[in-house]
């Protein structure tokens, strides 16, 4: 079906455009054939209704003959032929109508005949214009879709960045545990596998409940706690109302990874990562704090923060915020996103 029937606003606009177009057509016919207003209306109104419907047909023709890949000769020939056929058909219908009505309106048949060339030319022109309009619409739609596809691909690529540093260090911890504590080595293998599997599964989805995201975060931290031992301590305080909020998949996990890699890992005695989740009126606010060494060579945020920011921007525009505060010893990132509202999926 023509997309105009799926959008009542576009349909109303289309009908509205035909009102002046029909009036103009009527005026031309009445002048050319010296018809009275009533005679013109009697013939033109049904003709315009038919024409308005026929002028939607190029939607199919234009998609069958794409501008870029169709040879110019074929493109012109096919559409001109269609315009002539449409013009002929409309002429035939209107002549038949005039003939039928000439019983009541004397001489209509003859007078209408003299207006026929004008009508035929006008119809052909309107039809050709409609073809041009359809090409414009199709072109605009294609470019918007490719933009959406590109953005989605970008989101997927950002999510796919499982930090290799984390992965290889975890494997090294497992390698260390194998000889002395095989049971713990196996446990860690399983924890790591669970985390990777879950992040792959969640990464495929555009939005997930916040509760699932936090579950992934806990898996991540349990792996890191094997690696860092007592140096990594975690405190989580999330209001239950937060768990149902829809958030972009893997939006929190990179923030936690940052807190470990650029915070805890560079402090001798380690420290505590504090996570808070609050449900405000129509927003979800997530805060993560970690101690850090402001002088450490790589204590500044890495690629993770940039990715999260891009992801939020692509999905929410200005409706989401990511704020970073760095006091002399605490690094705090606050994420505020619209709650409950399902993030627009770009499927």
């Amino acid at each position, binding site marked *: 079906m023509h997309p105009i029937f799926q959008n009542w606003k576009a349909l109303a606009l289309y009908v509205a455009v035909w009102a002046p177009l029909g009036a103009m057509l009527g005026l031309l016919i009445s002048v050319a054939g010296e018809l009275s207003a009533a005679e013109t209306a009697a013939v033109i109104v049904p003709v315009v209704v038919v024409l308005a419907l026929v002028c939607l047909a190029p939607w199919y023709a234009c998609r069958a003959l794409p501008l870029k890949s169709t040879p110019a000769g074929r493109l012109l020939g096919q559409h001109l032929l269609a315009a002539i056929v449409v013009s002929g058909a409309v002429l035939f219908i209107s002549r038949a109508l005039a003939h039928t009505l000439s019983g009541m309106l004397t001489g209509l048949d003859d007078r209408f005949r003299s207006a026929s060339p004008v009508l035929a030319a006008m119809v052909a022109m309107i039809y050709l214009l409609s073809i041009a309009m359809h090409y414009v619409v199709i072109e605009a739609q294609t470019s918007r879709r490719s933009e959406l596809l590109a953005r989605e691909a970008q989101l997927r690529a950002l999510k796919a960045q499982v930090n290799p*540093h984390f992965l*290889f260090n975890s*494997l090294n911890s497992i*390698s260390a545990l194998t000889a002395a504590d095989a049971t713990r080595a196996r446990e860690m293998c399983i924890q790591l596998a669970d985390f990777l599997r879950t992040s792959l599964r969640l990464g495929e989805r555009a939005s997930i409940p916040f509760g699932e995201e936090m579950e992934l975060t806990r898996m991540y931290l349990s792996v890191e706690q094997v690696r860092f031992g007592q140096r990594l301590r975690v405190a989580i305080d999330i209001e239950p109302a937060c768990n149902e909020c829809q958030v972009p998949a893997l939006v929190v996990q990179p923030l936690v990874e940052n807190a470990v890699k650029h915070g805890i890992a*560079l402090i001798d005695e380690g420290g505590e990562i504090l996570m808070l989740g609050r449900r405000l009126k129509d927003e979800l606010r997530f805060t993560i704090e970690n101690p850090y*060494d402001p*002088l450490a*060579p*790589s204590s500044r945020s890495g690629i993770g923060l940039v990715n999260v920011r891009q992801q939020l921007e692509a999905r929410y525009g200005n409706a989401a915020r990511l704020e970073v505060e760095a006091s002399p010893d605490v690094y705090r990132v606050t994420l505020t996103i619209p709650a409950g509202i399902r993030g627009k999926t770009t499927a």
Partner: protein
Amino acid sequence: MKAIIVDDEELARRVLREYLGQEPGMEIVAECANGFEAVKAIAEHEPDVVFLDVQMPKLDGFEVLELIDRRTAVIFTTAFDQYAMRAFDAAAVDYLLKPFGIDRLRAALGKLDRRSKLDVNPAVAPAELRNAARPAGEYQERIVVKETVREGAKVHVIPVGKLDYAEAQDDYVALRSEGRTWLKQQTISSLEAALNPKRFIRIHRGFLVNIDRIARIEPNTKDTWIAVLTDGAKIPVSRAGYTRFNSLIGG
């Protein structure tokens, strides 16, 4: 053979301990969990080989390398640090990628044996190696220096904001900070490359100055000037340095 293991992760140290325990004649004289301990232990034990992690608290592996005797044989260890790996490859420095097997460790030790004891390792200056391992557009935020005290070695960290100026002195740079002067074996050019050019300016062949410390610049001779610092110190300014200063202030 005396070895020192430097890694902040207990499990990472454990693997090395396990492997080295299987090597006849190998003795682990110290295990360190951060860069400060490492500098101290290396000065004290003069080991034949140091296994040095790159990312650590307090001092990273590159900074440790800057502060130890350059004849100390070092084998870096890292899980995945593309910048460090690129720098190691460029300087032909041997390194172990975690997790590694005992065969890979033996190969690295074998390479050490074939080397002359007098060779320095790595062959490039530590500061150059550190510069090569830094992503473009990032600069060093601190300078580490070592002081020899009665108990051994003591490490000081100078945040670059507290550095007034550096002066070239043969193979060393004299770093002036908070009323004290620290000597460090490094060329002034490599120090210049490590610091943000918007904050530190090579005002003279032999002087690199913190731009915030310059109170005024006075003419001296026809082609030279004198920079007067906020603490009253006077530093010579060359023609090229004067041009650099003006373009930095103007820009």
